[in-house]
């Protein structure tokens, strides 16, 4: 009475990072000093070090001149150089042309048209023959060489990384773009560790934890400071001195989504950790590196939110500048971490030495937002409360224009073989609804915890997508998403029968969510399909 197709339920290491890694390779790897220094006993039995090394890492041989990582790309891996040397190209970075940056597979009209006959009336049909042992890699190792790398890089004093040196871990762990391009200047043997493995290594090995944190300070901070408009035009030395003086501060929890879900909205503000308090004297400029901060002032017995800050914004500049000009001035507003915030604190002295003398005009104060009528706060307040500020492509529906025709849902279904990827309901404020469609957050908490790395950021563009082939349907991402935008579906085979795990008979599920219609030209179909212009994908 088998009405269903049976498959083996995918396991976490069902798809190793490098299926070609042999036991011999593993032994070879364990001879590397850095790897050998890892204490294998610190790892639990369910996640042995060998397992991590075997399944979550791979050895790549780069040629001289080959580009390992490109600045701005999103990557899920860290790299440990076992032999050879690589340069980190910073300031000025390599151009797109030099990086051989190719756009991702262009949205193809052919793929769009093929949707016409791929549609089915059975939900979530998959071609299960594709699920075999296909090595899942988001990108194959395509060697891209930097032309005339000797000429381009020679004559520049660039940081050089050699054996036992690691790079790329911050981008992998922090879900941020690569800070800089790394080019091999000699033939190199590199161990690429995907971030699931890196996460475990950092978690269980103290040495790696320290190393990673130090690396951040040494490498990423300079780039970040360079990217800050406030420090435009400063000399390398000035920047270096700023970097040396900068302090790291982390507020909130990396895993803020779960605490967010638990807390009631009213109490949320009370739980947000304070970074700087109104009325106190500033102790340096705060730069938000990651996460979000809320700027609020006292309004009677409560706090009134003026605005929110995201990565790249600064806090306290106007007060410090006023102090520089004469007379100290206390903080005009309170800064709290919304969920989670990585902050950098630049001491006042450094600013007074390098930055303020170059400023002619006083910076704007946050109090300008206070002039706004109190009652108009609702939309912003609501966006911050619900953490919609995280979203870069939130689906905002103007309910005063929406006639509830569901054309958006049909359009979404039409680009995904008949399966929509969002539901047209969601939280409402006034006449705005944020529908349950993936917002492609700047801080994608869904990516935390994926055992196989099926959910990832695309190379360019930064949208968060799920690789259907490697998803094992564990539901971690769906449970993590604070907005309920990821849904697990039970897949069917081509005949319409449900696909079940051959071992347990349980239906096999896959995680699905909005992918901004990747591979379809024209951008998200939902936006294009709304006849009344009610639906927009907005960046909060």
């Amino acid at each position: 009475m088998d009405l269903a197709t049976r498959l083996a339920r995918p396991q976490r290491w069902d798809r190793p990072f490098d299926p070609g890694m042999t036991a011999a390779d593993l032994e070879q790897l364990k001879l590397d000093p850095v790897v050998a220094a890892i204490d294998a006993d610190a790892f639990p039995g369910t996640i042995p070090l060998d397992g991590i090394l075997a399944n979550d890492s791979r050895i790549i041989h780069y040629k001289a001149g080959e580009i390992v990582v490109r600045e701005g790309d999103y990557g899920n891996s860290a790299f440990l150089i076992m032999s050879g040397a690589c340069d980190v190209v910073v300031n000025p970075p390599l151009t797109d042309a030099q990086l051989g940056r190719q756009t991702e597979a262009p949205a193809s009209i052919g793929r769009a048209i093929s949707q016409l006959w791929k549609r089915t009336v059975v939900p979530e049909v998959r071609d299960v023959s594709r699920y075999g042992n296909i090595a899942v890699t988001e990108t194959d190792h395509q060697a891209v060489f930097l032309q005339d790398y000797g000429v381009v890089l020679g004559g520049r004093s660039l940081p050089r990384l050699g054996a036992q040196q690691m790079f790329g871990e911050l981008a992998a762990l922090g879900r941020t773009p690569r800070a800089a391009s790394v080019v091999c200047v000699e033939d190199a043997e590199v161990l690429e560790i995907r971030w699931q493995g890196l996460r475990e290594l950092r978690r269980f090995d103290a040495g790696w934890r320290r190393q990673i944190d130090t690396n951040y300070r040494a490498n990423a901070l300079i780039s970040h400071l360079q990217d800050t408009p406030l420090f435009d035009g400063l000399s390398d030395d000035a920047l270096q001195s700023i970097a040396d003086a900068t302090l790291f501060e982390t507020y909130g929890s990396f895993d803020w989504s779960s605490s967010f879900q638990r807390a009631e909205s009213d109490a949320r503000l009370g739980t947000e950790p304070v970074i700087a308090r109104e009325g106190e004297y500033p102790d340096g400029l705060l730069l938000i590196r990651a996460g979000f901060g809320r700027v609020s002032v006292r309004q009677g017995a409560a706090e009134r939110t003026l605005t929110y800050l995201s990565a790249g914004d600064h806090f306290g500049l106007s007060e410090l500048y006023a102090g520089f000009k004469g007379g100290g001035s206390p903080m005009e507003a309170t800064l709290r971490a919304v969920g989670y915030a990585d902050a950098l604190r630049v001491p006042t002295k450094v600013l007074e030495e390098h930055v303020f003398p170059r400023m002619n005009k006083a910076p704007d104060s946050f109090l300008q937002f206070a002039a706004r009528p109190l009652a108009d706060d609702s939309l912003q307040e609501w966006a911050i409360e619900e953490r919609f500020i995280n979203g870069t492509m939130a689906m905002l529906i103007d309910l005063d224009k929406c006639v509830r025709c569901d054309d958006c849902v049909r359009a979404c279904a039409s680009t995904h073989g008949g399966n929509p990827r969002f539901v047209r309901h969601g939280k409402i404020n006034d006449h705005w609804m944020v529908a349950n469609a993936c917002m492609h957050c700047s801080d994608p908490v869904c990516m935390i915890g994926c055992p196989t790395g099926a959910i990832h950021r695309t190379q360019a563009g930064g949208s968060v997508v799920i690789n259907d082939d490697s998803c094992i349907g564990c539901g971690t991402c769906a449970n993590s998403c604070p907005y309920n935008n990821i849904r697990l579906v039970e897949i069917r085979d081509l005949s319409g029968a449900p696909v079940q795990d051959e071992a347990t008979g349980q239906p096999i599920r896959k995680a699905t969510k909005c992918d901004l219609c990747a591979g379809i030209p024209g951008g998200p179909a939902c936006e294009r399909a709304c006849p009344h212009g009610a639906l927009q994908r907005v960046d909060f």
Partner: protein
Amino acid sequence: MIVRTVNSVRPFGYTLAAIGAAVIAGLAYYSHQEHLKLSDATFVTGWVLLTAMVSLALFNIRKRLSMMPMGRAAYWLALHVVVGLFAVGMFIVHTGGIWATGFYEQVMAGLFWATALSGVFGWLYQRAMPRRLTRIGYEVVYERIPAEIAALREEAEEAALEGVGASGEPTLGRFYSETMQDFFRRPRFMISHLLGAGAAQQWVDLRFRTVRGLVGAQEEPALARLEAAARRKLSIDAHYAIQRSLKLWVAVHVVLSAAMLTLAVWHLILVHVYAR
């Protein structure tokens, strides 16, 4: 803080309308000139009208082709509205009047005007109704309404039973089976909700006010629960009435236009057999 896309549909629509009006004026003039020359331009105007009507029908096709970059549906709607008005003008130029003679031609003219007027009505209706829907305060997806009403029905029954159980009095039970059971069975007060009148609200208010006077403190929480369910039901009923009317209107418009186009093809055949 919130990025809003620029709404450039309106100038697009106005430009199209200007072009359409110019075309109608030009064709009307051309038609008159041909009439003076003892010829007639009905073939030209007829084909223009048919082209306009077919392009109006293409809107439905575009909606099914969202996977291809066919242009934003908002522009298509503006095009549809403008071409629809253009078709009305073209109809008057083509027939030389408002109505027709002959059985099938009158049926066709009737269908045309029904479609056109239903279109105009719908365009205005679709601009007015969303605000009403939003003001109801509770949002529900149309397909989920039966599920929500079923849930409310259970909730109400539970509340009634809870009230009876808490106090031992049959008041709430009786109230439920006499009055509220029918109310929770399916969407009620459709016309009142459609018109935005307060009949349903008043009905609920009155009944609960009346019964409140009959219940004691023990039943009060259950009554409150029941009342909350009833008020939630009011919101859902309002949504049902209005969303259903929006969907019905579209169905009427599409069905009329399908019949209209069929007869237009028939007319095309006849005209070529008999008048050319």
